[in-house]
């Protein structure tokens, strides 16, 4: 579907292209619906969950693709499926529980029953309440299953697509993203640690941008910089990728805490006198033996983060133009030592709704959304690193990933003038 009618006709992107962003792009509900059709329900792979969340045959769990509720299931043979949580009869959600076990799913409304791959198995009173007729003779259960999504399982992660002709998963994410996914999901057995969720009254793209914006991380998150966890003077690899993806990594060494004098002068938030009594929160073990802190985004649904010994998924769930759920899933490995389990719990304080280096994000984005809503015709400026620079960066002080995102977005949504 191209953006052929109303929005593209009415809305004109500001001059200078991807280094300018109009505020209405975060506030227009009609545009939001178009984005969901184009991206989340289009030719993309959406993260939906982890295999360890449905560990046994005949188990299921709810998730989301965009604002739509879906069910991840594992059938009796162990095969994973993703189906819409919407009864083919009257649209009631079939699954009312967050997770459960059983061989089938029965809609509570009229008790239509589906198997775990979404096939309609039973309809009460199919032949009617005799002698009165029931469903028409030509009613074919095969035509009335749950909407099935194309499903892909990669090293313990589960992905779904509404499109039958989406690229193969490996091609969609590309070899470089795949390398970083495999770094934290190498096929080792995953242990689920828990969930934190937050509602952010802001547009989903604001959160997407926030997590691909290392420039802010060196300034807003003073806890980060104070403990040398993420510093502008560290060497970074900030890399735009095709299809709206990106990855960032940097080298963590304890001596990055000693900032060079000129960098420190720029970063007013460094609290050099502030220390923690329990430093294990900011003293990771180099478990991947490469000294890296890494994160990546697979557009449009997920941010995968390894920060020290925190392994976290930030599942970005758009609800409306002005509201997003951020679902954090924390995990480790089944063979973690007791020490590593404790370290992951402690370092968990860094990220999440109360995270030392993330609580500022939901604070600032909430306020940004309020400002943009009151001034939708204003324009934002994204020039750090160069107006037309879309190249990878070796410094965190760059907005190359934002420009790359908007270049991709404008092209996909038909705002770049190329689409007729």
């Amino acid at each position: 579907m191209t953006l052929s009618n109303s929005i593209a006709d009415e809305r004109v992107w500001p001059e200078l292209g991807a280094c300018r962003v109009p505020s209405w792009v975060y506030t227009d509900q009609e545009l939001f619906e178009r984005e969901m059709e184009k991206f989340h329900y289009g030719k993309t792979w959406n993260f939906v969950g982890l295999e360890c969340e449905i560990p046994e045959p005949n188990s299921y769990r709810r998730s989301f693709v965009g604002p739509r509720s879906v069910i991840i299931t594992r059938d009796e043979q162990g095969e994973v499926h993703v189906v819409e949580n919407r009864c083919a009869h009257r649209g009631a959600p079939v699954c009312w529980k967050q997770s459960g076990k059983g061989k089938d799913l029965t809609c509570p409304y009229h008790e239509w029953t589906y198997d775990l791959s979404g096939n309609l198995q039973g309809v009460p009173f199919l032949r009617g309440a005799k002698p009165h007729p029931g469903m028409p003779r030509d009613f074919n259960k095969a035509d009335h299953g749950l909407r099935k999504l194309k499903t892909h399982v990669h090293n313990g992660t589960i992905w779904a697509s509404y499109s039958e002709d989406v690229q193969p998963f490996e091609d969609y994410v590309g070899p470089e993203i795949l390398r970083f996914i495999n770094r934290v999901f190498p096929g080792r057995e995953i242990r689920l640690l828990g969930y934190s969720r937050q509602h952010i009254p802001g547009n989903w793209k604001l959160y997407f941008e926030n997590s691909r914006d290392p420039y802010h991380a060196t300034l807003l998150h003073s806890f980060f910089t104070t403990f040398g966890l993420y510093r502008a003077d560290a060497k970074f690899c900030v890399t735009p990728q095709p299809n709206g993806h990106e990855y960032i990594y940097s080298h963590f060494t304890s001596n990055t805490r000693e900032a060079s004098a000129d960098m420190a002068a720029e970063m007013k938030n460094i609290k050099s006198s502030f220390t923690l009594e329990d430093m294990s929160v900011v003293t990771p073990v180099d478990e991947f033996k490469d000294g890296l802190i890494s994160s990546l985004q697979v557009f449009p649904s997920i941010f995968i983060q390894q920060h020290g010994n925190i392994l976290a998924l930030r599942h970005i769930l758009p609800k409306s133009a002005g509201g997003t759920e951020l679902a954090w899933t924390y995990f480790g490995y089944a063979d973690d030592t007791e020490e590593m389990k404790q370290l992951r719990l402690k370092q968990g304080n860094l990220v999440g709704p109360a995270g030392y280096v993330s609580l500022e994000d939901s604070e600032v984005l909430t306020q940004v959304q309020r400002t943009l809503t009151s001034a939708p015709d204003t324009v934002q400026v994204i020039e750090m690193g160069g107006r037309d620079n879309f190249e990878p960066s070796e410094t965190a002080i760059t907005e190359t990933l934002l420009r790359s995102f908007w270049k991709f977005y404008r092209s996909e949504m038909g705002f770049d003038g190329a689409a007729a």
Partner: protein
Amino acid sequence: MGQSKSQLRAAVRDFYEDYAATLDADRVEAWPAFFTEDALYQVISRESHSQGLTHATIYCNGIRMIRDRGAAIRQTAVFEQRVIRHFISNVQVSEENGEIRGGANFLLIESLYDREPQVLMVGEYIDVLVRDGDGFKLKQRSAVYDNYRVRTTLVLPV
């Protein structure tokens, strides 16, 4: 100790209300004094807690991490000004072999600068207390929140 259950409950209720009043008065520096040296303090979602999962939204193992949480809020965190009020009800206590198990409902109302107050969080405390002179200290406090989602941000302790 010659203390009836209702006397114990009244004493624990006083302790809980002092804890809440300290946080409501934004005296986060005084908050660690409610805990023992080896205390475990956590704020955990009902979703994780009911599945037996260990990750907590706030996790402090020992008084040092509890003090760190307070200090970090004061010294590094950037957040909107807010007033939080705790409403504590339905205090429960039981004592066996010198160990006091306590619990209560909590409701946190958050007021931000130019918006209506909102429910930040609702849930229950699940506690282990020890006697400390005439009062108590918390050896364990799990604040289990019922909200499916945290409303925007959780800045201050629960």
